[in-house]
């Protein structure tokens, strides 16, 4: 049904749209996505919201040629682990750009794109991808 998984994905909109994560004031660690308990601090956790700048670099990458059904339209696409400037790493697609070399260490910036769609009549799920910048 078009509404399956609706609330599951809706909850993540602020995180996926604008990189809203969290920061533990007790130990200074940054987290994306946000989490309730700091792995370093346990019950001493003092978690507050933090929005990341969107800048980072490529830690590793691959080209996905056999995607799952919901990602077929976009294939083949570059998938990377990006390390944000503020520390946390995340998994995201890198926007294709034949004019730029994409390698470990390439500097990237946040972009807003369609990630998946729940079929013709279902919702469009937007979120983060990254583009290589010089």
């Amino acid at each position, binding site marked *: 049904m078009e509404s399956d998984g609706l609330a599951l994905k809706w909850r993540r909109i*602020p995180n996926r*749209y*604008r990189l809203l994560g969290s920061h533990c004031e007790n130990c200074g660690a940054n987290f994306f996505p946000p989490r309730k308990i700091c792995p370093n601090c346990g019950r001493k956790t003092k978690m507050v919201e933090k*929005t990341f700048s969107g800048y980072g670099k490529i830690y590793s990458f691959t080209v996905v040629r056999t995607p799952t059904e919901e990602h077929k339209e976009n294939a083949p696409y570059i998938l990377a682990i990006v390390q944000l400037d503020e520390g946390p790493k995340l998994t995201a697609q890198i926007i*294709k750009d034949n*004019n730029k070399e994409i390698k470990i260490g390439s500097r990237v910036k946040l972009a*807003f794109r*369609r990630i998946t769609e729940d079929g013709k009549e279902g919702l*469009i799920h*937007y979120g983060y991808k990254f583009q290589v910048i010089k």
Partner: protein
Amino acid sequence: MASIVGYGFYIPRLRIKVEEIARVWGEDPEQIKESLGVTEKSVPEIDEDAATMAVEAARNAINFAEIDPKKIGAIFVGSESHPYAVKPTASIVAEAVGAVPNLTAVDMEFACKAGTTAIQACMAMVDSGMIEYGLAIGSDVAQSKPGDALDYTSGAGACAFIIGKEGIADIKATASYTTDTPDFWRKQGASFPSHGGRFTGEPAYFKHVTEASKALLKKINLQPKDFDFAVFHQPNAKFPVRVAKILGFSEEQVNQSLVVKKIGNTYSASSMLGLASVLEVAEPNQKIFVTSFGSGAGSDSFIIETTEKIKTKKRGLLKKMLEEKEYVDYAIYLKNKKVLKSE
């Protein structure tokens, strides 16, 4: 007085040449380039749409204006290619730029002039004190029937203006002209738009642009020669130059705005990108005349004057965005616009 506090834009990197489109349909590219004044147009990636481009343009505008997004009191997104028929693009933008939740937002549609009407709405809300900042966006993945004349010019892009007070360019006055004129339309559920061929010219574009412009000039008691720049809606590179002449503007006044030559007609973003292109190079205290056109039909006209503040801002991004490009062929173009589907 309402003022442009910041502007931003987004143009996808991909391009398709007129030659490539003509190749598929067996037409003469030179003749088409000559008659339209367009050599290539922008093409979205398959994971882009009017919402994603609106967000990128809005983010750029907010960075340019250096304002706190939470102070945006209203967001209007004008488009003819909103991703949903019901569920606003404006709330997606609001969430993406972090303006949520204390604001009003709504989508607009009036063919290619929806974005400029959004500017008028923001002006009124700012002037009345209802909001501190308003965000007006025009964004389109311009639609056309494959093989139709519009296939050569329908581009993709978005432009955003942040309206507030005491910005880089004051909006001195505005006037509009609206009638029920069916020159270009798309029914609910139809895959592609339809248009009236030559009817889109005189009774539509030229009538409404000239009437709105004349009304505004009369209201403010200014003449074309008083302006440093003129911006008219750009369905191709010929109409704006012709209407300029009809009104008494020169080709030189219009030239800076003609982004259509490089990216085609971005529909709701068209006049706004023309204006942005002028703001990229304008000096302080220069007068800019803008008249948009939206099929169905109507025109919004504006008189804008730059302030000293324009010199304090880092400009030049549009030129970079226009130069960053990669060409695709007709099949990729159709695939990316979701015209070529596998189900």
